[in-house]
């Protein structure tokens, strides 16, 4: 979610006027998020490079920033475009049309032909000192499953669930329809749900 202090018209005006302290504050608050977004598509060193290039491009374009979207949305769009440019150099492309990716709903096999649960969700321990979601082994497991997701699902999950951006902002950043973003987020969540459910049952990643 964007930091409200950095999104006020007064603050944006300082930025547009070249206020260095204001720019430094934006870097302090948004750099890690932009890095998180770039890392969904690139290796860490390349992601770092894409974000640095993104800051340079953003700094240059700031006087023309009209505030039609939130500053964070605008910056994320710049960085994702840098990252996609780097991918294209390496001959890769992120496809945002979910029908072209073959990643069906990871929970589909849990239903019978009538659409009822044949393998219902297990009960997760959600509270208490040994709460499932806070266990270290599970964090590593989540990490590796997020890494292994198709690029488009990982990016949609990163922007929506990890960074908490609105669907409208995500559509704006990725230039895709809201329904496509929703499908990608759903598939990413279904994968992780299936993984956590299996972990609850077997204790294995």
């Amino acid at each position: 979610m964007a930091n409200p202090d950095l999104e006020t018209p007064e603050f944006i005006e300082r930025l547009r006027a070249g206020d260095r302290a204001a720019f430094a504050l934006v870097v302090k608050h948004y750099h890690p998020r932009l890095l998180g977004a770039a890392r969904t598509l690139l290796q860490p060193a390349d992601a770092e490079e894409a974000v640095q290039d993104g800051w340079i491009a953003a700094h240059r374009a700031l006087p023309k920033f009209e505030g039609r979207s939130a500053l964070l949305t605008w910056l994320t769009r710049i960085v994702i475009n840098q990252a996609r440019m780097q991918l294209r150099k390496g001959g890769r492309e992120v496809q945002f049309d979910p029908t072209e990716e073959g990643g069906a709903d990871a929970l589909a096999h849990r239903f019978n032909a009538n659409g009822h649960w044949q393998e219902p969700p297990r009960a997760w321990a959600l509270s208490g000192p040994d709460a499932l979601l806070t266990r270290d082994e599970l964090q590593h497991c989540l990490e590796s499953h997020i890494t292994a997701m198709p690029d488009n699902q990982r990016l949609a999950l990163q922007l929506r669930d990890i960074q908490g951006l609105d669907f409208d902002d995500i559509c704006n950043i990725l230039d895709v329809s809201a329904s496509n973003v929703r499908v990608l987020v759903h598939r990413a969540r279904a994968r992780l749900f299936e993984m956590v459910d299996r972990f609850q049952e077997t204790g294995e990643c």
Partner: protein
Amino acid sequence: MLKCQQVEQRADALVDGTPLSTRERFSLSMHLLICRHCRRYVRQLRALAAHLRHRAAPTAHDHQVQAVLDRVDHSRQVTDHKRHPG
């Protein structure tokens, strides 16, 4: 009446707070009222999404901020030099 699989496919709207039509909201509520498996699914999906949110990145270290400012300054100097050589 919705089937469980349809609830699974629509549950994201509940997690995301997406506005639903009265009819959609009613059919989801009716199903959840009678199906404990789907109630559990929605509850745990919400918990999972909330957990992911907590992984959001903190603020940058000062040295990272400085590195960005240095790069921006350097690039500006290079651009200025190209515009006004010598």
